[in-house]
């Protein structure tokens, strides 16, 4: 913290990266560069996959590049989160200002997510206006159970947050853990549903039993949503581990509230999905 303290009298200018590597500087961090290198590598991996399918590159080159870049990306992200949020968590003290901007950041991100999802929904509505062809049986007990789980998890994360604000740490951790479990069971349910559809019912991309036009929309939307739930589970997992290690308090709870916002958003998208896709698709 020496750099930050020394600059305390400097017009109150906060240095953004006092803990990061390379050490000893306030405005330098390797993590964005490393993470970007990994992210670029993941895209390069996707590009190599395309070249594999065109018989230009061998499979090994693709696999190597993909694994290495994913690792690099994760290392970058881990270092970033660690130095920016986790290390010296309590020393930084409560900072309303930084909480404010992080919440704005999450609100803006969720705005962009609306646009990401809407392309898939627009496709579905566009083909749904006409005849989508034969649709498999979609709405069953699995969907009802999964929906109940996800809605319940929205409540548990909300009450986890309020417990933290009231200073009931034990309940906070318990409800957060419950949210994580509910989320994981939901993901397992989705995987099971995919398995049933693809292996037993012959509802898949590239196989002709059911409408391909519908399958494209179904797997795009549920797949995109599944990715978001998985990311949400990772985020809740991070918050959960940090909570177990004694972080967060009634004054220090920004990431709990931003992750909670994200989780509610994913929940709302799911309900919309159930209504238009699972219930709405077979309606004549």
């Amino acid at each position, binding site marked *: 913290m020496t750099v930050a303290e020394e600059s305390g009298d400097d017009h109150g200018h906060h240095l*953004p*990266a006092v803990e990061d590597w390379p050490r000893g*500087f306030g405005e330098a961090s390797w993590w964005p560069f490393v993470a970007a290198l990994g992210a*670029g590598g993941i895209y390069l991996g996707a590009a190599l996959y395309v070249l594999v399918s065109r018989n230009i590159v061998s499979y090994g080159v693709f696999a190597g590049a993909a694994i290495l870049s994913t690792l690099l990306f994760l290392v970058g992200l881990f270092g970033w989160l660690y130095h920016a949020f986790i290390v010296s968590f309590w020393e930084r003290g409560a900072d309303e200002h930084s909480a404010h901007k992080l919440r704005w950041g999450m609100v803006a991100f969720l705005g962009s997510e609306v646009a*990401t*999802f809407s392309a898939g929904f627009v496709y579905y509505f566009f083909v749904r206006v006409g005849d989508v062809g034969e649709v498999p049986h979609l709405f069953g007990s699995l969907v009802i159970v999964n929906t109940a789980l996800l809605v319940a998890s929205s409540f548990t994360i909300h009450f986890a947050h309020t417990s933290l604000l009231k200073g009931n740490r034990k309940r906070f951790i318990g409800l957060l853990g419950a949210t994580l479990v509910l989320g994981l069971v939901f993901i397992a349910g989705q995987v099971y549903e995919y398995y049933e559809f693809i292996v037993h019912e012959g509802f898949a*991309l590239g196989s002709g039993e059911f409408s391909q036009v519908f399958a494209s929309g179904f797997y795009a939307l549920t797949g995109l949503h599944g990715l978001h739930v998985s990311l949400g589970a990772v985020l809740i997992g991070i918050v959960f581990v940090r909570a177990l290690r004694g972080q967060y308090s009634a004054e220090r709870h920004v990431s709990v509230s931003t992750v909670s916002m994200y989780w509610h958003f994913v929940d709302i998208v799911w309900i919309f999905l159930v209504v238009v896709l699972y219930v709405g698709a077979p309606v004549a």
Partner: protein
Amino acid sequence: MDISGQIVLTALMAVFLFGVVLFLARAADWRTYTPLAGAGSGIVSREGGYGHAEKPAGIFRWLTTVDHKDIGILYGVYAILAFAWGGIAVIIMRAELITPGIDVTQALASSMGVSNGQNLYNGLLTSHGITMLFLFGTPILAAFSNYLVPLLIDADDMAFPRINAIAFWMLPPGAVLIWAGFFIAPFVDSVAPSMASWTMYPPQSTAQTAQGGAASTISQLNAGTDLMLLGLHLTGVSATMGAINFIATIFAERGPDVGWDKLDIFSWTILTQSALILFSFPLLGSALVMLLLDRNFATTFFTTDGGGTILYQHLFWFFGHPEVYILVLPPMGIISYVLPRFSGRKLFGFKFVVYSTLAIGVLSFGVWAHHMFSTGIDPRIRASFMAVSLAIAIPSAVKTFNWITTMWNGKIRLTTPMLFCIGFVGNFIIGGVTGVFLASIPVDLILHDTYYVVGHFHYVIMGAIAFAVFAGVYYWFPLVTGRMYQVTLAKAHFWLTMVGTNLTFFAMILMGYAGMPRRYATYNLITVGPIDFIQLLHVLATVGAFILLVAQIIWLWNMVQSYLEGPRVGPDPWNLEEDGVDSREWDWFEDRLDTALTDGGEPEDAETDA
């Protein structure tokens, strides 16, 4: 070459690059950038002579920086490199179009690994459009906003400095993938630069081979297009991260005395632009992924029995039209910011410029189908889009009148930035008015897909956006470098650019009236219409393009030379205080000069362009 040979080469290349990095890292005495270019001590200290450094020296500084000013400079350098790539592409195209037949690109094609001249032309056309919009346009505006917005709103830095850095570092791999077709084509026959054009309409973008024909299996598809789509997606993620960052910054990081009523016009336009990016780029991202899935995994998003090409066009233009305002609003902000400084008065009707910015932001999401008037969509939908498209001319005109009234009876000083501002207004009027005609369905049906459209949007993109960029570059050059550029060269740059722009693009507007279709490498098959007239106009347009090339070389030389050797400036290089139009970023500059003088020495006599 076999695969193992390639791996050995790649490994050697990696060792070489590693060596270069080591060399650069050790050469700590190489010219380290300092904003005041004075204290070349190897370490960089913010606020001048302080005991320690906030950033490492040499190349590591640039790789690790999270300082918004450094990242702004990185964006600027990146955008200029992209501008050069897109510029060279179009120079080859214009050279091709001097004569009606295929010649220049035909001669180049085989050495670039492309099957024929037309395919090379189409590849260059695609690369020119994508590069100028996504790799030059958005990043050069991010250069200005990164450097300036935190200074203008009195913030320490961006809200998320690390996200700022990663958003930049995603761009170079994005560019490599977008251009990858050109790099791979010489070695692999089945890969060519993408020929999908910047709009990437299916089925052209989902079914084209490297030879330009239709593929019958996935393995025949030109991988150049897949790589371009992936690169575009990456740059879109980067732009979205930047937009989130600017929204959080402007909402949450304003200094204590910068209320919403005190927010400057440039930050207003950046805030609006960020909101547009937030809702349009992710949608494009999803559409690009859908194209990739259609190409590689047999989904039906844009196939004829699925959503079809019309769905793609809806999605694309729901992004594509706001993209126009993503690119033009911040330049309008630069003009609204710079033009009053050299008119000796405040911006006329500030509030209305803000309101018109917000109005454009909202309306821009309701006009997209004017790009689809000739596709056979429902006439009732067409008519409503025509109405909104005509209506969006109103807020644009509000701005134009505000700029003119700001200059009216003002104390005008014709410095280079001011010349570019005035050039902007003039060109924007031509670009805007030609656009109003296109918004009208019957006129559009005649002019659609002719050079008239190309002339119209280049008047806006080159004549207005690039002019505003140059106005900003000249105006803030002393702020960033502490030095003044060479005034004579700058004025030569302006006049050549002004003449070149109008020669090239007015010729295109006339060509469009004469019926010349756009996007063709040749025009030797035209047998009706004023053929000699079109031929003459093509020559004029090419002459204009070469004038533009010369002008930009002059500009580049001026920038580099002045950065290295230009005369130092005083705290108020534009004499703004005299007219009472000084602004926050120059106060910051003065602070910085004061603290730097302790180890720098007296500045030479204040240099100015006035």
